[in-house]
């Protein structure tokens, strides 16, 4: 479980990322990789809300731990580039953390809801 305060902070971070992204390329361009969300050094967070990964694209440095937090009433899971990593089912308010050590572009999806997709770019 996470506190209401930290959830509000997370949402502020997401809103900021979305606002920053909206100032960029035209709507037809692929979404740019968002900077890592605020958090302790070497960590980053992706929210799962309304059957979406938020942000859908995240840019981080190698060695960063990324945590997915599920804010939906429905369970989800996280599959990283088909074999790199796989969570179990993540129920409401539960988390899954994975450390990205190698640079590259990683595709993220939920095996339970195939339209849920995202990218993590590791520099």
């Amino acid at each position: 479980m996470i506190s209401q305060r930290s959830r509000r902070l997370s949402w502020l971070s997401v809103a900021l990322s979305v606002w920053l992204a909206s100032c960029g390329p035209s709507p037809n361009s692929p979404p740019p990789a968002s900077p890592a969300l605020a958090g302790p050094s070497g960590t980053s967070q992706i929210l799962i809300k309304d059957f979406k990964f938020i942000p859908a694209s995240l840019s981080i440095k190698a060695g960063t731990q990324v945590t997915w937090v599920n804010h939906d009433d429905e369970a989800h899971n996280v599959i990283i580039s088909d074999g790199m990593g796989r969570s179990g089912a993540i129920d409401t308010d539960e988390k899954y953390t994975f450390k990205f050590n190698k640079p590259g572009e990683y595709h993220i999806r939920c095996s339970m809801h195939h339209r849920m997709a995202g990218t993590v770019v590791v520099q």
Partner: protein
Amino acid sequence: MSDDRTLQSRRDALKCMAYGAGTLFTLVGGVLAPIDLALAAGTPKERLGKPLFVQISDTHIGFSKEANPDVNVTLKQTIALVNGMVQQPALIIHTGDITHLSKAAEFDLAQQMLSQLRTTELHTVPGEHDTSDATVTEYFDRFGKASNRKGYYSFDHSGVHFIALINVLEFKPGGLGILGAEQLAWVASDLKGRSASTPIVVFAHMPLWTIYEPWGWGTGDADQLTEQLRRFGSVTVLNGHIHQIVQKMEGNITFHTARSTAYPQPIAGQGKGPGPLKVPADQLTKMLGVSSVSVVNHPHSLTIRDSTLG
């Protein structure tokens, strides 16, 4: 109370139940005839057929959110409903999402509860909630024997050929789950040489026709399966996944999705996604239930009848 009055009150009760319990579908010679259950209640027993199997779906053991805080209770009600049938079905089919989170304890509890059914022959296919564990082993460790852990298999019962399929492991990127080339080739070999007069029942978790693609309510390569089934005179395709009844006919093929025993879901496209739908407490059991399939005029026709828990 006299026997006549008892009979009359039973008829009245059945008539009342009919409006909440749906419609009886009679499939004779490939033609589906919907009959209001109020009329079916007065139909002689021999014309309603022998119950062949009951389809239970989306039990989601482990779910405990607002939409249904105690799915164990509604599964127990389901089991009582099935055990209370005057003529017990020959077998039970579970069309997936046995558990909510693929946890070992959830599977253990589900198995323990399902063992309370008077009918002991149980056939299953997995839902995406049953294969969401990190190793994708919990379902197959318990229910994988019939398919040699592949998820698809076939069997025969009472002259009906049953085909169990899996459409929750492979998918089109960004799109729907699929059966895949290997499974489709297996279906072709399984049907090869089979008489067109053999009644066929196909069951899988996700709908085997596209109901609503944005929510994953379909199977990306199901058309290739449908083509293989067209030559048969009586085909019944059963699914779960969407927690509500949707049906259609295409030639001699009847497609039918079952209710959940755990919680309802929104109508396609209403809301942000296919999550649990909270309804007033007194409405919940009216939206949960099972489907039973009977053989009428064996072996030429099957009927589907939906029943709710409340």
